[in-house]
């Protein structure tokens, strides 16, 4: 039993690394533009399908597909920013509906291009077991966790130190004030969208390397990312990582102790509990919502 629990904790930890990348993209855009991109999960899935296409049609290694996935999701995210920034009236409601429309378009686009079948990588090395004492994982899971941590650390440094990173935080904190300080908010918002797309590219390729993909998965990814954002509270990368790992571990424990059918339920219940009990999240600073 102890071994099973340890294994669940370990799997949850690795899964949490991947979740953190997805959630961070959503949180960046939410920070600068105060909108939730309901098509964010579909961006991740788009990268996963690019990896699938590169592997099945071109014979590439799925990891090399990141070269194709980055421009694909980056450009799509830029296109989304362009349309979202054109909304004038009732921005809060209309941006939700607009990105919901994008999610429907992308999901059905994947369905048309790649059918409803589930796909996973055929690379043997990625799926081989990596044994660490009593703990097992696939090579791909450990690799994606390591890449996630590296990206998160890089992004943390960039947000804290670089001019653009600080500009992004300034726009998130106070858009008008940032404009007075000589920051172009429109360009910064575009940057946050493209950055979210780039993170989604890495997350999507990782998703394809260690899991199965199907067109309907995007919505679930968006919801997971939002759950993590709420858990973490706004404005902290370590918080996002911790919340993502918490969600990953809770899911893994549910699968181990109860049933895999309840995996999704865990996240939802965790989400509602945090929303009602700790509206500022586990790590966020107090701030009024809405």
């Amino acid at each position: 039993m102890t071994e099973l629990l340890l294994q669940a904790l370990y799997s949850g930890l690795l899964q949490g690394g991947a979740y953190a990348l997805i959630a961070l993209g959503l949180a960046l855009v939410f920070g600068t533009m105060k909108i939730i991109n309901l098509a964010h999960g579909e961006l991740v899935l788009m990268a996963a399908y690019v990896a699938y296409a590169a592997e099945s049609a071109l014979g590439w290694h799925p990891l090399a597909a990141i070269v194709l996935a980055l421009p694909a999701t980056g450009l799509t995210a830029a296109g989304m920013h362009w349309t979202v920034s054109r909304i004038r009236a009732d921005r809060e409601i209309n941006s939700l509906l607009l990105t919901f429309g994008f999610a429907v378009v992308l999901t059905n686009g994947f369905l048309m291009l790649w059918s409803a079948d589930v796909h996973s990588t055929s690379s043997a090395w990625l799926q081989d077991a990596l044994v660490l004492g009593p703990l097992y994982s696939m090579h791909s899971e450990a690799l994606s966790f390591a890449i996630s941590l590296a990206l998160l650390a890089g992004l943390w440094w960039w947000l804290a130190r670089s001019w653009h990173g600080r500009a992004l935080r300034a726009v998130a904190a106070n858009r008008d004030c940032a404009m007075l300080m000589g920051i172009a908010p429109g360009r910064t918002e575009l940057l946050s969208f493209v950055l979210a797309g780039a993170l989604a590219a890495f997350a999507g390729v990782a998703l394809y390397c260690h899991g199965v993909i199907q067109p309907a998965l995007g919505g679930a990814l968006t919801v997971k990312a939002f759950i993590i954002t709420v858990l973490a509270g706004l404005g902290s990368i370590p918080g996002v990582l911790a919340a993502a790992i918490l969600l990953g571990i809770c899911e893994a424990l549910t699968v181990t102790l109860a049933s895999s059918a309840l995996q999704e339920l865990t996240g939802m219940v965790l989400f509602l509990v945090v929303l009602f009990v700790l509206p500022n999240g586990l790590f966020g600073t107090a701030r009024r919502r809405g």
Partner: protein
Amino acid sequence: MALRNHSGVIASLAALAALLLAWGGNPYIMSITIAALMTGGVALAWALLGNLGGMVSFGHAAFVGAGAYVSALCTLRLGVPVPVGIVLGALGAALSAIVMLPALRLRGPYFALAILAYAHIFRIAATEWTSVTRGAAGLSAIPALPVLPGLDAKASACLLAGLLVLGFALAYRAIRASHAGLALRAMHDSEDATRVLGVNSTLLKGLMLLVSSAMAGAIGAFNAHYIGFLEPDYAFGAMWVTLPIVAAIFGGYRTLAGPVIGALVVSLADQLLFKEWLPIGHQFLLGVLLVAMILAHPSGLLPLAGNVLRRLRPGGNGKGGGHA
């Protein structure tokens, strides 16, 4: 003025009667019309929450599914007559909305996704609670809708669906015209200012959630008896969310007739054209339609048509949209 108040009702009844006279014997046209009317009912419920309550919901599938399961189980297990079952379905959906009331203090995306979380929880509950719902195997042989004398089953169901949606529209109009409706419309402009004037905004929004959920639940129950079969992925499916939202936005979610007219147009276009053009992934075009509407004219086609008519009319100044 009295005639103007009733002209919409009379026109809807006339259109329904004409439809039955012309195509009452054609089961295909009847079934796509019934599907369109049910989409219209959910679209109206969604628009009521969006317009009067100021809240976007991506979880109306929760209410549709809850209403369907309550009615199906009551009629199957307890022998309740079908019309009573539909009323119980509506009440059951409203009851299920009570657990969502805490979500009302959330706004915008938080509310939208909290409701979505509830819808997922309901679907998983319906799948896992096999002793009552029979889980993914589904419920079959659900008692059928009563057939009105002189009509065949399809035409009768179509008439009943039309009357149900008309009843929703009348209830919506009554709420909008009431004191509460006035306060709700004021809240749309500034909720804080309305609260200062002594309006209990949370209570009113909660009532709108209950009314909206009861409407969606009644549609779900009606649909369960119409098709006679239920399973969780269908009853709580995403199509109960996508199609009504696109329909309401297309027609104009701040108007009374917009969601229903939008549902008739969008649902029929989806059935007759989109599925023809794109057998796989026909909802692609629904998504495109939604994106295009939000970018080009987010208040929908009905207000747009109103503006055009006003501009054409001599002496009209073309000002003011069709805002409710």
